[in-house]
């Protein structure tokens, strides 16, 4: 699964989409709907809500797109980051409305915050769902995106760097920390299950 849109294509696509061209908007939906859905799903853990919020993201995209200023130096990465911010804002609104947040944010700092095991009730909740998705849902925002890009979308380090607007070295560091955090979370889950 590859993001086949090049920078030049993205510039033209955004220009057309900003003129409310339905074909260009549909193309953006095809390119990003699954990515946005996965991003929301691993955080929410509820398919219906994630699908509903995914549709909300693209409706808001239409509303905000006329004011969006395309970055001509890295249009794909900039637009991808912008769309993830839209999804993140909607997710925050959703949490605010629901008064419920199941997201456990693991900070992006290099040294892990603690070696203490994950609380038991979280591991027990993870058993009811897909263990891997729950583990990814506990990562920080950037680590989640790297894991989703790198393993779900199977993008190369270079493509992920372009999509996130970071250097390849930064992506390598992020995927290292993400894998190490996942290892810890999964180990804690195993211990809790046993």
């Amino acid at each position, binding site marked *: 699964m590859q993001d086949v849109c090049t920078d030049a294509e993205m510039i033209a696509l955004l220009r057309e989409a900003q003129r409310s061209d339905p074909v260009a908007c549909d193309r953006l*939906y095809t390119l990003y709907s699954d990515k946005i*859905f996965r991003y929301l799903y691993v955080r929410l853990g509820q398919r219906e809500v994630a*699908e509903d919020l995914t549709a909300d993201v693209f409706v808001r995209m239409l509303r905000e797109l006329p004011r969006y200023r395309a970055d001509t130096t890295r249009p794909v990465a900039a637009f991808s980051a912008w769309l993830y911010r839209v999804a993140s804002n909607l997710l925050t609104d959703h949490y605010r409305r629901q008064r419920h947040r199941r997201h456990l944010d693991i900070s992006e700092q290099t040294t892990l915050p603690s070696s203490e095991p994950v609380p038991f009730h979280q591991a027990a909740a993870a058993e009811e769902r897909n263990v891997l998705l729950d583990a990814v849902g506990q990562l920080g925002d950037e680590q989640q995106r790297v894991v989703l890009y790198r393993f*779900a979308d199977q993008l190369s380090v270079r493509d992920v760097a372009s999509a996130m607007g970071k250097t390849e070295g930064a992506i390598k560091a992020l995927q290292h920390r993400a*894998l190490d955090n996942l*290892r810890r979370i999964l180990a804690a889950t195993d211990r809790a299950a046993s």
Partner: protein
Amino acid sequence: MQFSRRPNSFENVLAACLDDLDAGASLEEILAKYPQHVADLAPLLAVAAQMRTAPWPALSVHGRVQGRERMHAALAQYHSGFSRWRPSWVQAAMALVLVVGISGASVILTKQDWPSPFATPAPVAGATATSQKTVVVPTDTATATPTVEPSATPTLQIATATSTLTVTASLDSKPATVLPSPSLQPSATASPLATATLRPTPTVLPTATLVMNASGVSQTPRPTDEAGKPGLKATPGETVVRTPPPQPTQRFTPPPPTAAAAGSQPPSVPPPRR
């Protein structure tokens, strides 16, 4: 696990191993290439392999169709909003410009008493093309329908758009006697020097010259004298400078041409005799 901060360190080794994993290499083959990092690499590569083969969720068919429909519905709503708004705005702006333009043109034309620019006379045979358009209108078409304003201002009327000039008042050098309109004030004069008589008689001048500027909207009748020079300068306002047209009843007799006027040398004066 300690993370090294050196460049080309463990993060690069891990990235290379993940590339090999993407290429289809087995965990054993990959770990065999980096024996010094086996302890650190093995658990991370195991998680990575698990992630690569995980059943990542995707939008269901229903969710995909629903999301796309919602997006296109919102798009159609925006489109309909624009279509309702844009033409009304454009039409209002165009109507405003049109009204202002027409009003301004009407005011200007009313003030300057210009004929309508749309009634541009068609070219007539004999018209000379100079910096000013001069159209010689045969006086046979002049009518004797007088329309004399109370201010005794000579009035020019363009009867049609085909260059037919109707001269409704002619100037005479006699004292002002306005006939037959009883509404005309006796004190009306067309010139401060010579009292003009606006007589709506069917007097037909030999020729009437219609002079228009380049824009074709200013017309000044100039009856020509014998020499063919303009003898009457009648602006659309009030001032009329008159040069009497040649008439048989004119009492003015020009002085006989002198030798100077004839272009010869002045007569030499004979020296006094002593």
